[in-house]
C-alpha cells in the first residue's frame, strides 16, 4: 500500500470532460482511474459522469469505458468481467462509477445481485446526495433537511424529511469481501482504499462522498473543503469493512461545528435550530453505534 501523490501515475484517464467547474464526482473518477491504471474498464450508467464524458465525438476517457443503462452498472460489469475471463484475459480491473441515485435507488438490485454472486468487480459510488444530472432531485442518499427541487423548503415542509440510506452497511450485510467509505476531501485515504480493493478478489464497494457545487449551493472552489468538513463534523465517516469486521479509519478528536458545515450550503440555509439539533442528535447516535460496532484504528 504505497500509492501517494508522489507515486501516482501521471497519465490522465478522465480529461476534457464537461462536468461543472469544481465537480467532486469527476475528481473521484479521475483519481480512482489514476490508481487503477490503463487496464481499467470503466462502466458508467446514465448520470452526470456519463453525460459529461461521452458525447460523440468528444470522448473523455483515455481507457476503455462504456455507458450502461441507469440500473445496469453492476450487471454490465459482471458481463464484462465474465466475457474477458471466458477469453482467458484476467489482468484488468472492471470498475463502475455510479452516482447516489444510480446506486442506492435504481441500481441497488443489480448491485445486490453482483455482490451475491461475488463477481470480481469494483463498484464505486460517487455520492453527491441527489439526482444532480437531472437537476437536483431527491435520492435515497439525500440527507435529512436538504432542499432539492423535489423536496423544496417552504413553510409547510423544510426540505427532505428522511435520513440518508446507509448503503455502506447494506452492502456489508451481503458479506462482501471489501467495502469502504471515503470522501474527496481525504484523497490519500481514498487512493489507499482503491489500491487495496484492486488487490482483492471478488466484489469490492467504495462509497465516496463527492460534493456538487451546483446542487449543494457552494462556490466552485469549496468542494474539497466541504468534503473535509463533512468528515470533521462527524456527518460522514471514513471506514472499511473487511473479513466481516468494520474498522473506523479516522476519528476526529473533537467534531467541528455542524451548524457551520450546514449553513455554508444553500441547500441547508432554511434549517431551523430545531432541525440542526435533530441532525446533531442523529450524528451522536450514529457515533455511539460506530464506537460500539467498529474497530478504531
Amino acid at each position: 500500500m504505497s500509492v501517494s501523490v508522489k507515486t501516482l501515475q501521471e497519465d490522465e484517464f478522465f480529461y476534457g470532460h464537461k462536468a461543472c467547474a469544481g465537480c467532486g464526482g469527476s475528481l473521484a473518477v479521475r483519481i480512482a482511474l489514476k490508481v487503477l491504471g490503463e487496464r481499467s474498464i470503466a462502466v458508467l450508467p446514465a448520470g452526470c459522469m456519463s453525460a459529461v464524458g461521452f458525447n460523440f465525438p468528444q470522448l473523455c476517457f483515455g481507457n476503455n469505458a462504456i455507458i450502461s443503462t441507469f440500473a445496469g452498472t453492476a450487471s454490465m460489469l459482471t458481463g464484462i468481467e465474465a466475457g474477458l475471463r471466458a477469453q482467458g484475459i484476467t489482468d484488468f480491473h472492471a470498475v463502475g462509477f455510479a452516482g447516489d441515485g444510480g446506486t442506492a435507488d435504481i441500481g441497488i438490485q443489480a448491485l445486490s445481485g453482483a455482490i451475491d454472486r461475488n463477481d470480481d468487480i469494483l463498484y464505486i459510488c460517487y455520492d453527491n446526495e441527489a439526482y444532480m444530472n437531472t437537476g437536483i432531485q431527491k435520492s435515497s442518499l439525500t440527507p435529512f433537511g436538504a432542499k432539492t427541487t423535489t423536496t423544496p423548503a417552504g413553510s409547510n415542509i423544510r426540505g427532505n424529511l428522511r435520513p440518508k440510506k446507509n448503503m455502506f452497511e447494506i452492502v456489508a450485510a451481503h458479506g462482501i469481501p471489501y467495502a469502504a467509505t471515503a470522501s474527496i476531501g481525504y484523497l490519500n485515504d481514498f487512493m489507499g482504499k482503491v489500491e487495496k480493493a484492486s488487490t482483492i478478489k471478488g466484489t469490492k464497494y467504495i462509497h465516496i462522498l463527492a460534493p456538487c457545487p451546483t446542487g449543494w449551493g457552494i462556490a466552485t472552489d469549496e468542494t474539497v473543503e466541504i468534503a473535509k468538513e463533512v468528515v470533521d463534523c462527524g456527518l460522514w465517516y471514513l471506514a472499511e469493512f473487511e473479513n466481516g469486521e468494520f474498522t473506523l479509519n479516522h476519528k476526529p478528536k473533537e467534531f467541528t461545528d455542524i451548524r457551520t458545515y450546514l449553513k455554508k450550503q444553500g441547500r441547508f440555509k432554511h434549517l431551523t435550530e430545531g432541525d440542526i439539533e435533530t441532525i446533531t442528535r442523529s450524528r451522536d447516535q450514529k457515533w455511539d453505534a460506530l464506537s460500539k460496532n467498529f474497530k478504531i484504528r
Partner: protein
Amino acid sequence: MAKKFLSGNEAFAEGIRLARPQVISAYPITPQTIVVERLSEMVEDGSLQSEFIHVESEHSALSCAMGASAVGARAFTATSSQGLLYMAECLTYASGGRFPIVMMNANRSTALPWNIYGDQRDSLSQLDCGWIQAYAENAQESLDLALMSYFVAEHPEVSTPFMANLDGFVLTHTYEMVDVPTPDQADAFLPAYQTENKLDLEHPRNLAFSAGPDHNTAFKYKEHLGLLNAQKAVAEAEARFVEIFGRQYTGLTENYRTADADYILITLGSIAGLARETVDRLRKQGERVGLLRLRYMRPFPGAEIAEAVKHAKAVAVLEKDISFGNEGTVYTNVNSALLKAGLSMPSSNYIGGLGGKNISQTEIEGIFRDLKQETVRIQFLGIGGEDE
C-alpha cells in the same frame, strides 16, 4: 448427426450448446425455464464451456449479456413475456449498441390478466426495438435457428441482436424427433465472433456513448441498414447450412402451395403446422388455398409477401396478437407491404390463440371459407362466453 427426442426448449438448448456462447446470463420464467436448466446442466457436465451467470432479473440478464458482448464475447440469454417487457430498456440498448446477442423468447401472453400460456403479444409489442425477430415452427427449426442466429447476428454487415421466438408450451414443451448435429459440423458452420465493436485492452475504446442531434440520425440510419442486411445474411447462413447439414430453409418466408392459390393464409410460429394440414385437406376437396409462413418479422419480408400473394383473390393474416385500439400488428405490416406493391385484394385479420386458447382446424377452414366472400374482416377467434 444423432436423432434425439426433444422439446422445443431442449432443441434450442442443444443448438446453443453447439454455438458455444462464452457467457450465458438468464433469469427463470415459465415457459422458458427448461432452456436455462438444460444449459446449466451442460455447463455442469462440462459439455459446454461457458460462464453461466445467475442474474437477479431479466434487466440484468440482458445488461450482463451486453457487457459480455461489449468485450467481444458471444453471449446468450432467454426470456418470455413479463421478463421480455422487464428488460425492454435493454432491448433498444443492445440493438443501438449493435451487440449481436442471441435471445430465445418463449412466446407467452402478457399480464393482465395473468396467464402463462402462449401468444405472441410479448415479442410483437417489441417489434420496433431494433432486433432481428424470427419465429420457429417446430423443434428442428428451433435447434437450427439457434445455430443460424449467431451467424446472422454476428455477420459483420449486420451486427444486430437476434430474438428467436418459440410459441410457449405448444412448441417449447412439445417433443419431436430432432436431428442434432455434431460439434464438428457446428464448428464448420459457425465461425468465431470477431468484431471491433468492443472494449479492447490493446486498443482502448469508448462505447455506448451519446450522440446529439447532429450525429444521432447517422447512427440510427446505420442501425437500420444493419437490420436490413440481415436478409442477405440469412440467405448466406441458409446456403451454408444446407451444405453442411442437408436441411434447406427458405429465407424470411416459407411458401406452401401458394403458387396457384386463390386464397392465402399468412401466419407465423407453430400454428403453421395445423394450417399446412388444413391446406392439404382443402386442396383434396379442390379448393385452391395456400399458406405463407412468416419466418422473420424483422427484417420484414414485405417484397416476399407481395410476390407470394400477387395472384391471390384474397388473403388473411392469422396472428396471436392484438395492437389494442387498432388491429393485429402482423396484419398492419402485411397491409403496408401489399399497398407498396400496388396489390389491392381484400385482406382480413384473424386474432386467435390469445392466452393459449386453442386454434382449431375448423376455425382455420372457416377463415378460408370467409375469404371467398372477398370482404374485409377483423375478427377475434374463440372469444368465448357468447350469449346464448
